[in-house]
């Protein structure tokens, strides 16, 4: 009987091309296109900023600066316009994005540099627009590169030998990566651990939500559930059949979405600044942990969705009640994404949230067997409670027939 009910739930989706498209293919296609598009646009934006020739108005530029710029290696990246005084018109240009930076030297800059023992240190004013990408990037680049080099140039002129004022440098070798002492395994999973728990959890819930509301609340609303309840099949079997059917559909939908996600991962990681240069180093243990955590997560999601759906009189009502649960999942997913450091053990005991954190920890090889056991135990208890509550709801005439 259980198999008959499960196969009906599967057939309902798989016998309808429109439902196959909307349940499985559309979310996967959306993920693939969306993340690829986001990745391409982000890469283009970063490349564009990198290639951009910064337009800078230099006010009261000292001769030493002009001379320096003639020999500065990266001078092609800057288009300098020397002006005598700052004006409101120039500031308006920065505000409008037509000019990236106004760099204003004090009018006595050269004198103060020359008489440095008696004068105050001159301050260069850099006006920029933080809401413009080019202006913001140029501001950072000016300080860390061009003006840093100019500063060293002046010091060298002043003391004849730069080593007189530089006590030490840090990691200036040709290959700075040799100084990185990292856990290769953790590093390989770091990129995916930032995004996958969040995306997987949200996708799992979203796919189960759409099908689940239709499977139970929809059948109640249309009156097709009553025909099944009239048979000698126990209410527990009907409830379990619906739940297992939904879980299978949610897993299939998520797997297809995961394939789309993995296909877009290189682009997606470009958005967050991560990379996939290292090979993922997951072994059988990690894959088993990830699989079990995901299955438990599906169980909890399906339980929540089925319970809410059976308690609702219509798909619309179910949607209203499921939305807050979806928000909790999203909240947990984002909290896990932005969490840093080792996850405290008690976090794994929080139903639903614990699963998302456990998934992240499993992806970074940080999930201990104790943490894993806690997640399994808590999840099984929660799933058990949800299954029992859903089964009881199926037995209630008040719930099933609004009596």
């Amino acid at each position, binding site marked *: 009987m259980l198999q*008959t009910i499960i196969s009906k739930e599967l057939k309902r989706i798989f016998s309808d091309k429109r439902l196959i498209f909307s349940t499985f293919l559309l979310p996967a296609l959306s993920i693939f296109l969306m993340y690829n598009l986001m990745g391409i646009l982000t890469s283009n934006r970063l490349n564009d900023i990198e290639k951009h020739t910064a337009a800078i108005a230099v006010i009261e530029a000292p001769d030493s600066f002009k001379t320096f710029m003639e020999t500065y290696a990266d001078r092609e990246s800057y288009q300098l316009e020397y002006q005598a005084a700052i004006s409101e018109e120039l500031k308006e240009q920065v505000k409008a994005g037509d000019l990236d930076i106004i760099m204003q030297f004090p009018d006595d800059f050269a004198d103060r540099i020359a008489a440095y023992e008696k004068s105050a240190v001159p301050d260069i004013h850099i006006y920029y627009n933080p809401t413009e990408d080019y202006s913001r990037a140029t501001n950072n680049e000016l300080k860390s590169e061009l003006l840093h080099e100019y500063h060293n140039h002046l010091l060298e002129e002043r003391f004849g030998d730069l080593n007189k004022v530089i006590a030490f440098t840090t990691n200036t070798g040709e290959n700075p990566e040799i100084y990185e002492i990292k856990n290769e395994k953790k590093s390989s999973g770091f990129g995916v651990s930032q995004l996958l728990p969040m995306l997987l959890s949200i996708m799992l819930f979203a796919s189960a939500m759409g099908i689940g509301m239709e499977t139970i609340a929809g059948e109640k609303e*249309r009156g097709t559930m009553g025909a099944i309840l009239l048979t*000698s099949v126990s209410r527990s079997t009907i409830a379990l059949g619906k739940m297992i059917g939904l879980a299978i559909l949610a897993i299939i939908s998520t797997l297809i979405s995961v394939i789309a996600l993995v296909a877009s991962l290189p682009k997606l990681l470009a958005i967050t600044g991560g990379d996939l240069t290292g090979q993922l180093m997951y072994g059988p243990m990690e894959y088993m942990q990830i699989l079990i955590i995901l299955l438990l997560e599906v169980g909890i999601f399906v339980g929540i969705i089925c319970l809410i759906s059976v308690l609702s009189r219509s798909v619309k009502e179910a949607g209203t009640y499921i939305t807050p649960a979806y928000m909790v999942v999203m909240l947990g997913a984002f909290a896990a994404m932005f969490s840093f450091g080792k996850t405290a053990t008690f976090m794994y005991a929080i139903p639903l949230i614990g699963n998302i954190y456990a998934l992240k920890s499993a992806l970074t090889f940080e999930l201990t067997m104790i943490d894993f056991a806690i997640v399994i135990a808590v999840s099984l208890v929660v799933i058990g409670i949800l299954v029992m509550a859903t089964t009881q709801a199926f037995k209630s005439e008040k719930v099933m027939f609004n009596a």
Partner: protein
Amino acid sequence: MLEVKDFTKIYKLSKKQMKEMRTDEHNKVAASHIDFIAPKGEIFGLLGPNGAGKTTTLRSIATLLTPTAGEIFVNGVNVVKEADKVRGMVGFLTNDIKMDENFTADYIFEFFGKLRGMDKEQIDKRKQELFSYFNINEYKDKKIEELSTGMKQKLAIAVCVIHDPEIVIFDEPTNGLDIITAKAVTDYLLDLRARGKTIIISTHIMSVAEKLCDRMAIIIQGKKVEDGKLDEILKRWEASDLEDAFFKMYVTYGKEEK
């Protein structure tokens, strides 16, 4: 045989329902102390206006609702204590319960056959009988959503009696049907009677009851006010037909409640 003894059903109203019904009462009495016997091989009619408690009574017989008080026996089996057994003996057709329209007639028939514990051979044999009787064969591979209202009703009847139940309950069986389909439904009921089944129908159309029912009970505002054979009822109420008798009953018992 069906035996309803002192059946009472009281619904507890939620605050939302109280507000919708504009009442301060926390309970709604849908059926009160109803009793009747529907003998084997007869058509028993449960008559009354909309909201009288007919559907509540029928749903309780079909084990979908639990009586608040009283007892119901289907062939001597208590519907509360042995609900699963009763479900195997009863076929219930009501407009509130529909077939899933995403599937074909063929699939839905097989699905319910399996849920009724029938094997493939039994399902195929029954399908052949019922699909031929109701002329469904031509449409069996079409999705139910593509079928006409009449054909949907015929399929619903076929699914309802797939397990060849001893007791057949039809709630407003001809409601909303065209004259040809309604005739096919009433003919089938007469056919079931001829085969010795116990049939209970509910209707608010008196002419249907007059034509089909061997015995009947009239329910007004949740209470049984009359039962017996047609001629006995007409004689007691000095009425020319059932409609006339019903209005006399309604004036008498309907007023009391007000």
